[in-house]
């Protein structure tokens, strides 16, 4: 079968303009839902940043690599303990919390840093909405 143009889906997510545009839109909508969102990024499973929001004080590339490792380690723990699929990861600290979860059906992770003005529950709810939105936009 002739296929004159490579389909967008064959590009790595961090190089795919469709994913980049969808990621920017999703993170902007996420910011509208939570002013406590200090930093957020969409990244590939293997740690490449696709897009980020509010990156003035955070090294987006390093954050993406660390989020990728954390996600993989969490998945490994869930697998080792036979407790099913890892749904999300929370790192709760004194001055903020990181919430990260997969965009269902894609090798993409959403990682978001909220300040302590946000409750963990609301942060998680907003992150879930954003992950679903990203999945819709790149479906």
């Amino acid at each position, binding site marked *: 079968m002739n296929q004159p143009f490579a389909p967008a889906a064959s590009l790595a997510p961090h190089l795919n303009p469709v994913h980049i545009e969808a990621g920017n839109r999703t993170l902007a909508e996420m910011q509208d839902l939570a002013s406590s969102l200090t930093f957020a990024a969409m990244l590939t*499973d*293997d740690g490449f940043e696709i897009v980020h929001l509010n990156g003035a004080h955070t090294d987006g590339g*390093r954050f993406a*690599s660390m989020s990728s490792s954390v996600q*993989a380690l969490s998945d*490994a723990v869930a697998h080792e303990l036979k407790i099913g699929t890892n749904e999300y990861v929370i790192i709760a600290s004194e001055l903020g919390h990181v919430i990260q979860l997969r965009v269902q059906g894609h090798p993409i992770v959403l990682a978001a840093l909220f300040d302590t003005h946000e409750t963990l529950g609301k942060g998680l709810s907003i992150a879930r909405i954003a992950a679903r939105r990203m999945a819709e936009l790149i479906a």
Partner: protein
Amino acid sequence: MSEHVVLFAGPMGSGKTTAIRSLSEIDVVSTEAANTDRATADKETTTVALDYGEITIDDVTKVRLYGVPGQKRFDFMWSILAGRARGLLLLINNDAPDSVELLLEYLNDFRELHERGAVVIGVTKSDVAATPTVAEYSAALTAAVPEQLIPVFTVDPRNAEEMRTLLLSLVASVEMRELLAPAPEKI
């Protein structure tokens, strides 16, 4: 039972995960993700946090095998895991561009570990690329680290016996280093 912690390091695609799988007596804990950087290494998956396995040698020595991601963007994992290791098993794929230079870069990245512990080099994929030779790697290592004799082997990470030889050589070096270390002063 004594224990050693050994770190498997080297570029993406050098065979670290495969080597640990060849050696380990337990199910290896892996953290692999879909590889989107096919230009660097044409393989389906890549390690993004660590690999972990265990092997018992001579019935009384357990060796904990930690593999780190090859890409520099994961160097925070290198620091975390190097801190607990005493031995460095550095793999270099012979088909990598400028593989001798690349080996020296990785060796330098883990300098703190091999200066206080021990290191061996495993040259992989020498069936894919015949050069550089082991002698060329050895000459470069001698020039770069004249104070330390660093063994270089060609290995196939899929071959458990070859990997075991490499590992035993490393463990012997670690144990020798520990024996020669000055005893702590008595108060």
